[in-house]
């Protein structure tokens, strides 16, 4: 396969994918550090297995799988800290670089989305995956992926305050 793990090509791939992957992992992780741990594990595992980097659906499936396992392993602590984390993460460890109030409102509206819609949105907007790749990663049909994306946008539009 093509992606032999030389220093050059893994760094190129990772630097391109890392911000979106970390953002994707943040949906299940309660902190940036946890999200980075998840991405690190998924990427190393993916790279070592020499999967084709073009198969991004598989990479995101790996991140999701590891994130869910991480959640299960850490469930007790997660329950204990969930309230505090959900309240403080947005302040201490924001997921986006917010430049103005309209972006702040947009991020707040994003937080209100159901998880299944938000994960499709994150994969589509910030990771530029196709619906086919999203469908592959989430094990859903392409139509479902597209529907969730449209619902997410509609919900965002509805929840955003008028300009």
């Amino acid at each position, binding site marked *: 396969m093509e992606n032999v793990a030389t220093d050059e090509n893994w760094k190129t791939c990772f630097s391109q994918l890392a911000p979106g992957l970390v953002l994707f992992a943040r949906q299940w992780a309660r902190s940036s550090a946890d999200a980075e741990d998840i991405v690190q594990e998924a990427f190393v*595992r993916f790279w070592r297995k020499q999967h084709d980097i073009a198969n991004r659906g598989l990479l995101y499936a790996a991140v999701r799988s590891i994130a869910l396992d991480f959640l299960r392993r850490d469930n007790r602590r997660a329950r204990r800290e969930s309230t505090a984390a959900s309240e403080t993460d947005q302040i201490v460890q924001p*997921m*986006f670089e917010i430049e103005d109030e309209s972006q702040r409102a947009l991020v707040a509206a994003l937080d209100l989305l159901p998880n299944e819609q938000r994960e499709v949105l994150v994969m589509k907007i910030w990771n530029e995956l196709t619906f086919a790749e999203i469908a592959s990663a989430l094990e859903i049909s392409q139509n479902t992926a597209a529907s969730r994306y449209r619902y997410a946008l509609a919900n965002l539009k509805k929840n955003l305050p008028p300009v």
Partner: protein
Amino acid sequence: MNDFSEIEDKLRKLRPVPPSADLMTRVERALAEARHGDSLHRGKRSTSTAGVLPREWRLHFNWLSLGLGLAAAAALVLFARIQFDRPVKKVPALASLTPAPQFSSTNSTAQFIPAGLTQVVYHTRDEGLHFPNNSEQPMRRVRSHTRETLRWRNPTTGASLRVSYPSEEVSLTPVSGQ
């Protein structure tokens, strides 16, 4: 264009917080350790390519297979024993793997004879794709919960004995990533 192009543009202008500076270093170190581990595993057969995968996952998988095999073998032995002890004539029974036996005149008053084994799968959950330790490809994990009930009956006194226990089975099915 669609009705959502404006909101899509706004979303694209949102920039995710970049990962920490040391993430790349950590991944680099992890990959280096992985390569070192691969070399150790491959030993003298090691080549200069990075294309050979570590195979330690097979050990884990084989242990799982061994465990499942042993469980299946134990169930077979139990089942065979019940079949062996059971009288010849069979009467089919609903949801029962072993039908109710016909009793012979040689039974003593204190003898319990197997009357049936029932296995009910009451919950099956598809847990999606997983990557067991160092596996090459994703595997679908399906967890099944069953309840097995063994019954014995004393034909002379009419007394019956029933043992019921829950069991759980996890099956891993390789899934092609392409």
